[in-house]
């Protein structure tokens, strides 16, 4: 059946909400081939159906085939675009979660176009943030309304020395617990160095 493969792409999307599975190159290629074949088929059908002045002859026996073919192409294109667009949206959410550097496991699942898009997006976002206020404003912090000034965090890795904005130097060891100002550790939490203990 036409557009069945494209539909599988969409199914893959809805199964993996919020995460990025590996880019399904094989299936995308198959859908592309289907579109190409259908498009060629449609063109030759169209030539047969149209009369000399270029207007379709409805009584031609190929006319229904042509209609189905065109609809199938449209559906395929739509699915293909939805697949790619929604992957970009997920990627965009990840830019806000992880910052401008993607974790390697996510990066491995992207295709080269997506990596290029990500760096472009990242660049325009940084540019926009720099244009705010006098010296730029990082929109990537203060993501949640502050509930308390200090929070308790656990260190997940051996990070080494870390200097707070008031000059105190902390030694961050694996599994050590700290009670720190929220603004100081927000970035380290997104980087995965800290875990917030609720």
């Amino acid at each position, binding site marked *: 059946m036409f557009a069945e493969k494209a539909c599988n792409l969409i199914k893959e999307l809805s199964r993996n909400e919020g995460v990025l599975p590996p880019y399904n190159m094989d299936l995308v290629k198959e859908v592309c081939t289907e579109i190409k074949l259908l498009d060629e088929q449609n063109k030759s059908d169209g030539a047969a159906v149209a009369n000399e002045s270029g207007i379709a002859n409805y009584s031609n026996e190929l006319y229904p085939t042509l209609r189905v073919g065109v609809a199938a192409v449209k559906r395929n294109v739509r699915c293909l675009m939805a697949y790619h667009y929604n992957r970009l949206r997920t990627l965009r959410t990840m830019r806000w979660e992880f910052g401008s550097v993607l974790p390697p496991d996510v990066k491995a699942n992207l295709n080269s*176009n997506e990596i290029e898009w990500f760096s472009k997006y990242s660049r325009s976002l940084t540019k926009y943030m720099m244009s705010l206020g006098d010296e730029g404003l990082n929109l990537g912090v203060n993501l949640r309304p502050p509930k308390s*000034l200090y929070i308790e965090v656990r260190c997940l890795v051996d990070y080494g020395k870390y200097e707070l904005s008031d000059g105190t130097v902390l030694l961050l060891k694996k599994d050590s617990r700290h009670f720190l100002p929220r603004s100081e550790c927000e970035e380290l939490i997104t980087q995965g160095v800290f875990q917030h203990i609720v």
Partner: protein
Amino acid sequence: MDDTLEIDNLAVSESEDELSLEQMIEVIEEAWLNEKFAPEILPHKTEIVELLLGQITHMEEQLQQVSSTDFKKGIHQMELDRLKYLVTSYLRMRLEKIETFFTLILKQEQQRTEKNEEPYLNPNEFEFAQEYEQSIKDHFESIMSFCPNVMDTEAQIISPNVNSMIILKSKKNIEGITVDDGNAENNDLIDLTSGSQILINYNSIASLLKNGDVHLI
């Protein structure tokens, strides 16, 4: 939220602006709520955001000078954090809307420039929107490059549901709001008294909201 955002005189600079910090916070809070609940993007409030950002930097500098053992410092820091969250959250929401409805927003901006109306996006946001559109376009073009003539650009436009329901509070007496229910023949008219609240579809009051006669809650 109202009473927690008061900041005492220590942090307020003696600027010659007509707005006090308290008024500025009120304005941004209203803008934040409006932006949060309105389905489409609203006119930008760049001046107030810039002013507030200046104030935030100023307050941070002042806080640096207070000794860390001072009990008041914690409270002020907390206020400052709340204020920062308000501003960043407001800007983030606008960006999200721009990203979701970029084609439509850019189209509307174009129409506004043609009619010499005030743009809804500030220049920086506009630039961001254009770059975003370009990057998405490039991406799609590289995907569809195998068969260039089948792309259906019209179908790509994502638009917000401007008929969604919102709850608003009126700031003054307004008479004769037409409730647009998609049925042109029997439109109901309603009057709002100052301070009244109502559940209504966004379309009917979009212009009032942009004038600042009502605000969303």
